[in-house]
């Protein structure tokens, strides 16, 4: 292969990113299928809500508190900002900007996850469990699925950061960064739907 490269007539690009790269499209379709997964979970939630009984949440469970979820929303959604700037930085070739942006983004994501599993869930478990009724099952399934996706995003982030520190990325070589960014934004957007379904809709 080295021979083949030497014989290339000019400096053709070895790497692609954005819509020119297969991997970018792979991420687009992965997100499409994941979005369907969440759409079906949320559809199940409303199906059970409207099929089951007049009161929701049932059996005198109170509608969820909004303060903590709103704080969590601000934290998670704002994590998209440094991630966005990380991508913008590496497009201009700034590895430092990339490292800082990714680190900030994953820190905010980790705080969100800590709040979900460290405070929000134990709090909810005082009132109901996944076994209590369909509402409890739905609550923990949907927030659990989303949390698992944030965790997956964090693993992806760490992977990208390790490679960023090893100098794997540059202005013309950053497909992994783009794919991570896209995935991270997606997980944040899904949170908006989860927030509306799990936390806001029971108040309606």
């Amino acid at each position, binding site marked *: *292969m*080295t*021979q*083949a490269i030497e*014989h290339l007539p000019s400096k053709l690009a*070895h*790497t692609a990113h954005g819509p020119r790269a*297969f991997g970018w*499209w*792979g991420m687009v*379709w*992965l997100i*499409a*299928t*994941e979005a*369907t*997964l969440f759409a*079906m*979970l949320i559809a*199940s939630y409303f*199906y*059970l809500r409207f*099929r*089951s*009984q007049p009161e929701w949440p*049932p059996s005198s469970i109170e509608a969820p508190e909004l303060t903590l979820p709103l704080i969590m929303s601000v934290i998670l959604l704002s994590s998209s900002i440094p991630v966005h700037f990380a991508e913008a930085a590496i497009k201009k070739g700034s590895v430092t900007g990339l490292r800082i942006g990714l680190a900030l983004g994953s820190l905010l994501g980790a705080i969100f996850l800590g709040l979900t599993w460290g405070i929000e869930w134990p709090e909810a478990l005082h009132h109901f469990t*996944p*076994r*209590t*009724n*369909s*509402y*409890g*099952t*739905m609550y923990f*399934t949907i927030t659990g699925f989303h949390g698992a996706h944030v965790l997956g995003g964090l693993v992806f982030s760490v*992977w990208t950061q390790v490679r960023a520190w*090893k*100098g*794997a990325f*540059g202005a*013309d*070589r950053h497909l992994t960064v783009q794919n991570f960014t896209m995935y991270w934004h997606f997980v944040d957007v899904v949170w908006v739907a989860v927030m509306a379904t799990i936390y806001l809709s029971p108040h309606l």
Partner: protein
Amino acid sequence: MATAALTRRGMFARPRATTGWWSWVTTIDHKKIGILYGVTAFVFFLIGGVEALFIRLQLARPDGQVLDAELYNQFFTMHGITMIFMVVMPMGVALMNYFIPLMIGARDVAFPRLNAFSYWVFLFGGIFVYSSFFLGGAPDGGWFGYAPLSRTLPGHGMSYYSLGLQILGIASLAGAVNFIVTILNMRAPGMTFMRMPVFIWMSLVVSFLLLFAMPVLAVALFQLMFDRLFGGNFFNPAVGGDPLLWQHLFWVFGHPEVYILILPAMGIVSEVLPTFSRKPLFGYAAIVFAGVAIGFMGWGVWAHHMFAAGLGPVANTAFALTTMFIAVPTGIKIFNWVGTMWGGSIRLTTAFLFAVGFVAMFIIGGLSGVTHAFVPHDAQQTDTYYIVAHFHYVLFGGAIFGLFGGLYYWWPKVFGRLLGERLGKLHFWLYFIGFNLTFGPMHIVGLQGQPRRIYTYPENMGWDLWNLVMTVGAFVIAVGTLVFIVNAVLSRKRGEEAVADPWDGRTLEWTTPSPPPEYNFSDVPLVTHRDDFWHKKYARTPEGEPVRVFAGAEHADDDEHHHGIHLPSPSYFPALAALGMPFLGYGTVYKILPAMIVGAAILLLGLFGWGLEPSVEE
């Protein structure tokens, strides 16, 4: 710039074998993976077929004693799961794997290692489900797994169902992403959308259907798993759950799934009929858009599976109408296939016979399908053998006939030798007669009220004779399958050697040698027409007669200038990552945390190694 990535070594030395079984484990060549898919699907076809024979033996006589009720439930459930998820889907994937790159002028699929991962996940998923037979009993709640029965059935069978189909679904999803990117992004220069072979179009539609249908099944299976294993309440009406939720989710997946099963066969038929009629496909654009329309409309008909569930007259009427509408694009295809044959100079090869058999049997299955759209009619048919007759006409007379047509058509390209035509025709007629003997009478006993899924029936219901006929028919099909196996073995040893273009074909795969080299095309083809190869072979005289302009593919690959062709290297990691799946499955079914941890560790290790190794190593 790239040196850092190129010199870094993976955890193990890179596999280098190009022959022997190890080369098959580490291969990421789409052609080898296609063969693996095909062989595995065929083995499952034999297993699912044996299950069907046992079912028919049990039902041959009233009050049959061959199987007891429990085993019968396991057999008909596993027969359905096997034929749908482990035979028809992967057999279609086998042909897509092998022929998508060849027909669009590419050297491999977009993600070769993901492709290998798909295959190994499929294989391990299938083995996982089948291992339940030896571990206390297979799934026994029907392939549709209706709640609340499926959440309360004792034993581990339905837990295997929920986990096993989940694993198989991961394989399908990975394959779908791969094929979509391959078809959208890797077509040879000049291969515009409206120049793509119809098989490629149908593969694209199927991949999109998979992409959006499998997550729906995934959600339903997760819910079933939580209900069965972790005390969830999705389908528990006592505390606000609803069994109908399962039915909705399952059929929102299930009806697109029907088209996932049939569209590859429709694509194959659209390749076989023009080639052996020596005419271009009649109404290419109409067939393509009808296929795409089916892909969209297939999402709006699911509740016709639930007319007996009591959704109310408004919902029933709406879904009755959409169901009648979806017959329109299917009818468009049928007319265009007939138009393709009309006035053609037809060669009655085995592949052609299977394709025509597909069209004929699919018409019958399609018409009986339209009768389900009438809600009162459906109330009489639901849960009877009439339904069984309908979907076997669509899935056996349809999908399986189409797939065998594809096997006879493409066999010489894959294995370099033709299948015998005499045995092939014997195979076809045994299938055709056996199939109609088996499933034709089911219409009659079904309308007379013989219920499906029941392990026996009493005497003097008027069903005895027809049931015996069905059993005889099933064994005729079995003999046909044996003929195919004999044909395949004989072809391997002394079949006629295939030239590059044995059928005077129209599409790019026939420009490559049989079998194609690892890199498929030494030069990336430049496409200027639909049916490009035909146009390169033939010019038109002033009278409009085609005349041959050159000898065809024999010129290809006579030089040695393919040495620098860039191909991805083999890898252990897809198979290793896939090996984690059954561990996760067993760990979840039996709630053994260490097994789950081991499974997750294997999966992560595989993905880690996969991520670290460069795609090419010199």
